Structure formats: C-alpha cells, structure tokens
C-alpha cells in the first residue's frame, strides 16, 4: 500500500462516515500462518466429528455410537472384576473386529460430514484463498478423521486395560496386549479413515457418501468372509483363505494383527496369514493408506477454485 493509504487507518478518516461508524480498527497482532491454520482446521474437524461446536442434533449420533462402542468394554470389565476372572473375556486386538459394525456406522455418518460439506457448500475455495495449501487441508482432514476413529476404537481398550489392572490381572501380559491392541486400532484408524474419506470426497452429496461408505465396508467384508467360509468348508483350502483376507479392510487389519500383534485370527479355521503373507498384508494396508492420501490430493486439485 503506497503513500495515500496507510493514513486511512488512522488520521485520514476524519470524514463524516467515520463518526457514524464506531471506527475500523486495524489488526497489528500476530499472523500465525500455515501451520497454525492447519492445526486449527484439524481441531475443528476433529471436534466436528463428534458434533462438538455444532448443533445439538449433530452430536446425537456420534455420541450414541461412542457409547455403544464403549459399553461392552465396561460390562466385560465389571464382570471380570466381580467374578475375579483370571483373564478378560476378549483380547484387546479382537475388540474392534467384534464391533466393526459400530465403527462402520460411525464412519458412514462422520466421514461425509468431515469432507463433503465443504465441497457441497463450495467452502473449499475459501480455504485455498488463504495461506493454507491443498496438502495442509488434506492432511488436516485425514488426521482429524483418523484421530476421531482412534478415539472411538482406543477408548474401549483403555477401559479394558484399566479394568484388567483393577481386577489385578497379570500386569506385563495385560500391558503387552493393550499395546498390541493400540497399534492395531491405530492402523485400523488410518486405513478406514483413508478409505471413507476418499469415498466421501468423490460425492458432495451426503446421502450418497453415507450409503457408499456402508456399502464398501459391508459388501467387501460380506463377500470376503463368505468366500473364505466356502473355501474353508470345501477341502480346508487355508492358503486361499489367507489370501482372500486381502480384499476387505477389516480382514486386512485382522491379518496384520494375527501375523505381527499376537492376535488370534477370526478367519474361518482360525488360521490367519503366516508371517511372510503377513508382510504382504502390511504392505497392502500401507499402500491403501498412501493411496487414499494421493487420491484425496487429486480430488482437491480439481476442487481448487
């Protein structure tokens, strides 16, 4: 701004309009830049994933699902403490697999709200007209969704662990199991967040997003587990069962944790992938996470302005 304008901030505005107007105040404070904006977007999106800072109505579903996710853990812990059991009724790594339907519903409801609102209401250009870049936006949204899922899946594990300690179960064993469970749900959160965000970002229509997320998660799991069951029944073809698990998100996580995190497989026959096949599982999970990140980046290149 050259010679004539800076005084307008202060002295220059002595005209009549200035009097009616309580006066424009300039901002000389800090401008915290890209990293801060990205963090703000992350926390706003994470809070939004639980309906916080939004209408009461939008809190209902995520809070109910959060409750449903934690309730079994509380019951198990209560039972374990009361009956002085020597172990918890489920493994830490098994909990998320058992409650995968709740995770699926949560994702279907919250992933579209995290990304497709901005697309549908064309708010995206407002973000990109600010210091924030496409990478920052995608990372903030991805991280927020993954964190929201991690909160959903790790909280019941914390409940179980605290309960196990209260019930005076074996400390090293419980701690190891808890740690393995946390690693497993962290991986699950990244994978599921990525897949659900990509699906949601493709369609600005929220209804389609919800349906598509549910469809992808349940259809893939349904198909994989059915075919696995058939393969197992007909001649106990467990190699086929092992490889089939690669084709749905939840069986992928199941495979990885069976191979590396001491989990018992939920595959038919209870025979999960061996360590060498497990490497393939892990690579596929990582490739899917990276792939969804790349897909989101592409999606927003087009959505730019």
């Amino acid at each position: 701004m050259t010679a004539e304008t800076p005084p307008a901030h202060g002295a220059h505005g002595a005209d009549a309009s200035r009097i009616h107007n309580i006066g424009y105040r300039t901002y000389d404070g800090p401008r915290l830049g890209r990293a801060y904006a990205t963090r703000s977007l992350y926390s706003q999106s994470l809070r939004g994933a639980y309906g916080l800072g939004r209408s009461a109505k939008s809190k209902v579903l995520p809070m109910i699902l959060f409750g449903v996710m934690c309730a079994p853990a509380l019951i198990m812990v209560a039972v374990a403490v009361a009956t002085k059991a020597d172990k918890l009724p489920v493994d830490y790594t098994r909990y998320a697999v058992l409650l995968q339907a709740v995770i699926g519903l949560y994702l279907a409801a919250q992933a579209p709200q995290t990304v497709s609102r901005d697309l549908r209401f064309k708010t995206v250009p407002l973000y990109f007209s600010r210091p924030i870049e496409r990478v920052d936006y995608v990372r903030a949204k991805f991280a927020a969704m993954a964190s929201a899922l991690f909160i959903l899946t790790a909280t019941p594990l914390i409940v179980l662990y605290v309960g196990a300690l209260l019930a005076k179960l074996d400390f090293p064993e419980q701690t190891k199991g808890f740690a393995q469970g946390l690693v497993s749900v962290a991986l699950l959160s990244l994978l599921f967040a990525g897949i659900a965000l990509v699906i949601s970002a493709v369609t600005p229509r929220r209804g389609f997003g919800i349906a598509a997320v549910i469809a992808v998660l349940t259809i893939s799991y349904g198909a994989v587990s059915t075919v696995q069951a058939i393969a197992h029944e007909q001649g106990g073809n467990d190699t086929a069962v092992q490889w089939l698990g690669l084709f749905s998100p939840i069986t992928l996580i199941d495979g990885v944790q069976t191979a590396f995190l001491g989990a018992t497989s939920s595959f038919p026959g209870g025979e999960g992938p061996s360590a060498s096949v497990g490497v393939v599982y892990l690579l596929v999970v990582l490739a899917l996470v990276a792939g969804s990140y790349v897909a989101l980046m592409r999606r927003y290149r087009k959505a730019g302005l």
Partner: protein
Amino acid sequence: MIATESLSKRFPKVTALDRLTLDIGAGVTGLVGANGAGKSTMIKILLGLSPATEGTASVLGLDVATSGGQIRERVGYMPEHDCLPPDVSATEFVVHMARMSGLPPAAARERTADTLRHVGLYEERYRPMGGYSTGMKQRVKLAQALVHDPQLVFLDEPTNGLDPVGRDEMLDLIRRVHTDFGISVLVTSHLLGELERTCDHVVVIDGGKLLRSSSTTDFTQTTTTLAVEVTDSDEHPDGTGALRAALGARGVTTQDDGGGLPGAGHIVLLDAADEAVYDFVRDTVADLGLGLVRMEQRRHHIAEVFRTGHEQHGQRENHEQHEQHGHHGQPENPSGRPAAPTTTPPAPQTGGAQR
C-alpha cells in the same frame, strides 16, 4: 498493488486471458467484462491458485508464481458463488475463517464481531446462515474476506443477485472498505455503470483482452461540459439559435445536444474550461434579452467513454440509451476506439454545481 505483464491463461478450448498488461494502484479498481471475459480467471491467478500460461503477475510486490502463500496472507477474497454452509452461524463461520487466515483464537473472535458489525450484520449473526437473505449472505461473504484486515481484497461480483437497494448498499460498503478501512479493492462486475460511482479506476476486459484501463475521474470530473437552456423571446423566436450565434460570434464554439436533428436542439453545450465561462454565458444571455432556464455542469458518464466514434456523431443521446448502458455496461463495440472526452456527448445525468 497489482501488476501484470503480458499475462495469458489458456484452457484447452478457450483463451481466458490474452496477453494482459496492467498496473493497478491503491484504491478501488473495477474489473469489468461480460460473462466469460476472464475476470474470475484473473483473480485466481492473482491469488496464486492457478498458474498463468504465459507472462507474469505480482500482487503487493510479490510474484504470484512463487509467493502465493504470502500474498494470500495479505489479501482477502470474496468468491462469486455461494460458499456458506447453511447450518452454522455467521459468527462461527467467520471466526473459523479468521483462524484459517492465521489469527489467534481471541483475535479471531474480536475481529469477527467488529467486521460483522462493519458490514451491517447485527443480531442475525448468531442464527444459522441457511435462513439469510441474499443480501445478508453477501455481507457475510464480504466479512470473511475482510476479517483478517488484508491490505487488498478481491471481490468477485459482490452485487450479484442483489436488488437495486441492496446493490447500492453493497457499493457504498465497498467504497468504505477503502475510505474507512484503508483496504484497497479489486471488484469485478459485468455492469460498467455501477462501478463508475464506486471505483477510482476501471479496467475493462473482453474475451481476455484489455479494452481500456482508465481512471474514472479522468472522465467524470476533469472534463465538464456546460449545458445551457434558454427561453425564446419575441425578438429571438429561436432563443437557442440566437445564443449559439452570439456565442459563436464571440469566439466560443458550441455543440448541439440534438445531434443536428430538427427540433431537437434546445440545449447549447460548451466546454467550461474555467469559472469565467459561466459569467460570460450569463452576460451573453442577458444581452440577448433571453431568460436563462438552466445552466448546469455535466459529467461524462463513464459508459460513453467506451462508445464508438460512429455513435457520437450520429444519434441523439437520450435517456433510454443511457439506461441501456447502465444495465449492460459493456462497450457497444469492443473494438471501438474510446472517444476523446471533449467530443463525447454528455450524459443526461447531471453532476457537480448547478447554477
């Protein structure tokens, strides 16, 4: 504030900007062009969001190709399309956008309250935006562009969808953004007429090409024309003709508002170079014994600056024609040379001193 050098943007099928060279200073600048002229494309390039195919551009002295982030920290942008989520309130929305511009939480809230008040949003700012009128939405869109106190704002068709009153209020607000807030403005419109009042400078583009870049004051203030209307008397049945002859005899050239059409010329026009001309005309009228109906200064309507030479010498000016200019605001003939102000017929609109 903004400089472009041979700036071009080509899409596979269309050339949106064609070797545009501009230099825009502080103040309010209008960017005028028909639909598809390349206005929005230009703003996207200036924000560093879309690379130019050719040429260079700088905003606030920063190169758009390399310093997009820094530019976007210091400028504001109001898009032409809707961009407001209906289920949050204006306050929540603008606070969030302020933080996206890097303002700390407390400052973001404080400046949101201030800015919404400045754009004229009061109690309704706590209600979800889905229930807002178009006028209120436009104000929120403006507020989010101003909330971080930028040095420059890009307003893409801010009067879109507004009724005449809303339009005037928005234009006044835009004027104040510069005069009261000290923020320079680049505002686009496809209506040349509406920017005349608001802008210090107007750039007209058509099909991505620069048609004209000029200061509005050049046309609206510096060249004043005096319009004189007199009564007839028994001695001079054609008072207008007599005045014209008398002035001519004293070395003052006059123009005929009627464009030479019979019966049309009841008004005598002459250039008012200085104050003495007023006295001179008054004396001449008195000497002839005519009654002076009116003598007024006319500003040139910016629309005519872009009129073709053909038209100037042809048709009689009338209100209808000017109304059309006001509405379409585009040059009638994009390739036409702009008229020299002194030979341009005056608008019926009057301005400045009336005597």
